[in-house]
């Protein structure tokens, strides 16, 4: 086949293809134009795309912002002996850092060393020598991280600080109490945790005659679950 013959064949076909292509483009542009016109606002001339969206509401998802727990511990009551303590707590986690907590607890009977040594004297009547409190706290989560066991298991944990106000009942009277504490939360899974807290409670009292500021120290350990 000669070189000129080959060229001629190519010159004929591209011309036919070009005609076909131009016709297709014209038809396509007409169709696209009509489609464009559908989405164009006739008043402003702006293109307003119609995109289907799906709304996901928080209410459709199981939220676990509340924590309910129970604890046991020891409380050292100033001028009195050590007592065992048991109580319950409920917390609302407002965000990943801040939580609001309400708790209530009651201790075993606590006596003074003087009462114990004398044998017969009872300073505070039976039934009123239990310390009880309820308190409202604001807590702050800090130092979140993981707790490892022999390089194979890892659990989430976090420390927290909390402080607030409450009412302590002791010796037949109620005392406005300010408290602060530090704690550690170990999450065994997403919704079950083991907590330990050390806290200081302070209030003004005149049980032993003259008014003074009492400082009680307590150590609590417990479990809680999120729901």
């Amino acid at each position, binding site marked *: 086949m000669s070189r000129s013959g080959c060229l001629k064949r190519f010159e004929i076909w591209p011309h036919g293809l070009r005609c076909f292509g131009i016709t297709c483009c014209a038809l396509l542009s007409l169709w696209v134009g009509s489609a464009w016109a559908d989405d164009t606002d006739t008043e402003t001339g702006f293109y307003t795309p119609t*995109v*289907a*969206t*799906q*709304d*996901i*509401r*928080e209410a*459709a*998802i*199981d*939220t*676990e*912002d509340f924590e309910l727990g*129970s604890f*046991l511990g020891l409380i050292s009551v100033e001028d009195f002996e050590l*007592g*065992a303590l*048991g109580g319950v707590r409920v917390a*609302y*986690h*407002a*965000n*990943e*850092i*801040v939580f*609001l907590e*309400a708790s209530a607890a009651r*201790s*075993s*009977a606590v006596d003074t060393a003087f009462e114990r040594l004398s044998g017969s004297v009872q300073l505070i009547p039976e039934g009123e020598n239990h310390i009880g409190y309820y308190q*409202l706290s*604001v807590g702050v*989560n800090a*130092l*979140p*991280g*993981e707790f490892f066991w022999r390089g194979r298991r890892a659990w*989430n944990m*976090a420390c927290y600080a909390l402080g607030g*106000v*409450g*009412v302590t009942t002791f*010796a*037949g*009277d*109620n*005392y*406005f109490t300010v408290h602060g504490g530090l704690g550690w939360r170990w*999450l065994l*899974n*997403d*919704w*079950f945790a083991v907590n330990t807290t050390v806290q200081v409670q302070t209030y*003004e009292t*005149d*049980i032993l005659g003259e008014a003074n500021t009492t400082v009680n120290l307590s150590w609590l350990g417990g*479990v809680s*679950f*999120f729901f």
Partner: protein
Amino acid sequence: MRSLLAFCFCALVRLGVLLILCWTYSGVMAAEPVDLGSEEPLEEQAASDALWLKVAAPYIDVYTGPGQGYPVSQVVEKGDLFYVLRQRTDWLRIQFLRGASLHEAKRAMAETGWIPATSLKHVTTATGEALTWSRRGADSFYARRWEFGLGTGSLRGGSVLSVNGAWSFTPNLSLEADIGQSLGRYAENDWLAWRLVHHPYPNWRYTPYLGVGWGTFHTKPKTTLATTEDRTDDFWQVAVGVKSHLWRGVLVRVDYQHNAIFTSRKNNEFVGMWRVGFGYFF
């Protein structure tokens, strides 16, 4: 000592019962999540499909816990499907299987982790539709029906602790119950009050309110003072305050109440009370 031992024993028994309940519940929970299979009715299937989402960004970090401070242990990549299991604060617990189809991902025991809810900006539905995330925010505060709160403040120099609950029967009007305790140096007071509260501008960022209430007021002198009798009297009050949305379901409120206590003595008492508190609404 005997009472201490008895107390410890009772407390341990209670803790034991709680632990057993927790572990029983744990067994129930362990059975979940997983089969979102075809035995469900069609509507439920459609609802569960709504929570299957697809990553549209190059990748999203997956954390081990619900907080920025927890380590990033994995990522989900563009095109990966994941299922939202639950939410804690602004974090979502997700279950995912990298590179799997929706059918495979639904049937497999996939990996889990936490992503911030803000990352839903980079997500579409499993079928590729755009997504809007209706977060609990100021709108739900303006539309609240129920409210429960805790507060602290001052009454006649004594420190106050109180609990209140409110039911909004119109956007402007609510009925509120208030139980409180005030602890002073010489006496303690407690009260129960019912209050009708009007919010003239319920859609403001800081919503003012006015209230009128009625209740009973109990006064108990300290036991260390010379014995005087406890007193219980009726009282009326007017209250003025302001409340505002803080985060998610939390609001903060500050108010002042002026109370007129109708005593059985010669003169009535007029006492003012300041209070600040947090509330949870829904």
